[in-house]
């Protein structure tokens, strides 16, 4: 088997293991081998690793497959100069060199489409409250995937719109064409600073089936969307931005004073408005409340707080897991009190419903 064929076979194996081997990678791998001493195993290993791994997660599979594929043999049989001059920059005979240089881009066959071990589509629609423990890891992966997509969409949307400062160069160029007079200001297309997203997650008893899942989602979102702040509340409010960003979800669970106690939405909001809102919220901030609106506190306080919040924030989005039920009507005391001040009331019971979130946060159509 020629060297190139072996290399090809190796790439196919890597691909089957989930590494994203692109069309140029084989050619680059071949060229990289020209730069090392093929008789030295670690050099071959590192050269191929540098070219073929694109993420830290790739390296484990790479090491395993490298060991399997090349076993204990020399990775490539090298017809070395019997005189053993040893120098020569590790290059092989002219044959090998030209063979490697001629590596064709399209020569890695496509592997069969791999079937995922879970069915994302079904999971996407399923009510999270009814998920079993085995489905949680898959769910977590999906939540992360979702958050990434969403973060991308939101970031992209936020960048358009908004007029920027005057662009002197473009203004001048225009002026030149008009006899040197500035008749029209040209603006630099300044992108708007990414809006802050503030999430308030209800972690009281009635939300428990969803709490953990929504937290996973918020964590994944916060990781990718800069300038997000996250809070949890039940009878009182706790800021968890840092822990959520760092993925310490267990710690967050511990932080919430009573993860499964009653809910005082009004009191929690009041706390938020007094302590955090002045520095966190302005007219461009989207506030995301995730709660079923089953309030055990004072409704009047809640109404007042919602009014204050509405005046300050750009948009208020209320995600309610119960709203996924087609027959749902916002009758819960807290929910009906808050409703007049909410820009969007949307369901948040499944991943599918969360995917719509991008549209609400940025206010356009998705």
């Amino acid at each position, binding site marked *: 088997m020629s060297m190139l064929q072996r290399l090809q076979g190796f790439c196919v194996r890597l691909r089957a293991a989930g590494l994203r081997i692109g069309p140029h990678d084989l050619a680059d791998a071949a060229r990289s081998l020209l730069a090392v001493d093929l008789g030295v195993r670690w050099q071959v290993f590192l*050269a191929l690793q540098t070219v073929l791994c*694109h993420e830290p997660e790739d390296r484990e599979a790479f090491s395993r497959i490298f060991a399997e594929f090349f076993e204990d043999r020399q990775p490539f049989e090298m017809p070395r100069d019997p005189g053993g001059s040893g120098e020569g920059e590790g290059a092989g005979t002219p044959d090998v060199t030209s063979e490697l240089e001629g590596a064709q881009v399209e020569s890695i066959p496509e592997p069969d489409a791999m079937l995922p071990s879970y069915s994302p589509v079904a999971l996407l629609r399923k009510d999270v409250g009814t998920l079993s423990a085995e489905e949680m890891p898959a769910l977590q992966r999906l939540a992360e995937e979702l958050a990434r997509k969403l973060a991308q969409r939101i970031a992209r949307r936020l960048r358009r719109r908004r007029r920027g400062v005057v662009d002197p160069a473009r203004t001048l160029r225009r002026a*030149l064409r008009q006899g040197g007079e500035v008749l029209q200001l040209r603006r630099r297309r300044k992108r708007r600073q990414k809006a802050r997203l503030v999430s308030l997650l209800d972690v009281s008893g009635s939300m428990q089936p969803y709490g953990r899942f929504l937290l996973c989602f918020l964590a994944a979102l916060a990781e990718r969307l800069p300038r997000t702040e996250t809070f949890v509340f039940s009878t009182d409010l706790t800021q968890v931005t840092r822990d959520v960003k760092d993925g310490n979800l267990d710690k967050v669970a511990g932080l919430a004073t009573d993860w499964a106690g009653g809910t005082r939405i009004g009191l929690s909001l009041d706390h938020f408005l007094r302590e955090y809102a002045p520095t966190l919220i302005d007219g461009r901030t989207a506030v995301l409340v995730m709660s079923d609106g089953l309030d055990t506190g004072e409704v009047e306080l809640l109404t007042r707080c919602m009014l204050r919040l509405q005046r300050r924030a750009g948009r208020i989005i209320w995600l309610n897991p119960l709203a996924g039920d087609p027959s749902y009507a916002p009758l819960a005391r807290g929910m009906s009190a808050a409703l007049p001040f909410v820009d969007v009331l949307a369901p948040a019971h499944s991943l599918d419903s969360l995917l719509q979130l991008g549209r609400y946060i940025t206010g356009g159509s998705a």
Partner: protein
Amino acid sequence: MTVEAVEALLAAQRYVADRPVAMAVHLAMHLGKPLLLEGQTGIGKTELAKVLAAALGTELIRLQCYEGLDASMALYEWNFPKQVLRIRLEEHSGKSPSEKESLIFSQPFLLERPLLRALTRPQAPVLLIDEVDRSDEEFEALLLEFLSDFQLTIPELGTIQAQQRPIVILTSNRTRELGEALRRRCLYLWMDYPSLEQELAIVRARVPQVEEKLAFAAVRLVQRLREMQLEKAPGVAETLEWLQGLMLLGAGELTPQLVQETLGLLVKSREDLLRLRGAAVESLLEGI
């Protein structure tokens, strides 16, 4: 050049490169591909680019990325005030508008930003694109274009081709997932925290005046700290800084009190410092 030669080249600059690092640099130069470095902060990513430039005796051009970085800061910009002044001067020169235009849109009125500068040097520079994860996707697209052809088109001037292909090093702290396309374009190197032996070697190279015993104890302590799941584990940069601090204090050996007093050089968040108060430091020092 061979891998070993690269290793020696870096070592001459007192940069201790393990094999994967040397190989990645070697291939980046050999294949002419950009090298993407990822890893924790303070682990020597930026340093590697600096050292490489010094080792090759070439210029280091650095582009620090941030959110909102755009073409006018990364590629080039016209020197507007200079252009305006020139137009005023030329007001009665009798030149036609198109002559004036081509006058003020010429090289002397161009402000070179890092990416353009990297193309116009006579000797291939090392181009460091630092913390690329901080920039946004728009800039990533721009970068992709730049990295694929190493040329740049300025509408008023035409296309500028690289005189010498720069050696490009990108660093990322993974605060944002980089686009697939950019990843693909680059060679990839993940830098881990060094092992005890490696870190000792780094200390010896960088702070040679430190006594062996103290260096060993200090590095062991740092390595233990890294296992503690701190909010921000100390990087190699912190180790070196700390040791330099200890040298300044004339420390001969590590005592709990000394560690406590100098901990601010290693651990830089309040929560972490609180965790390491009192008994925690003593148990950390146990057996060292």
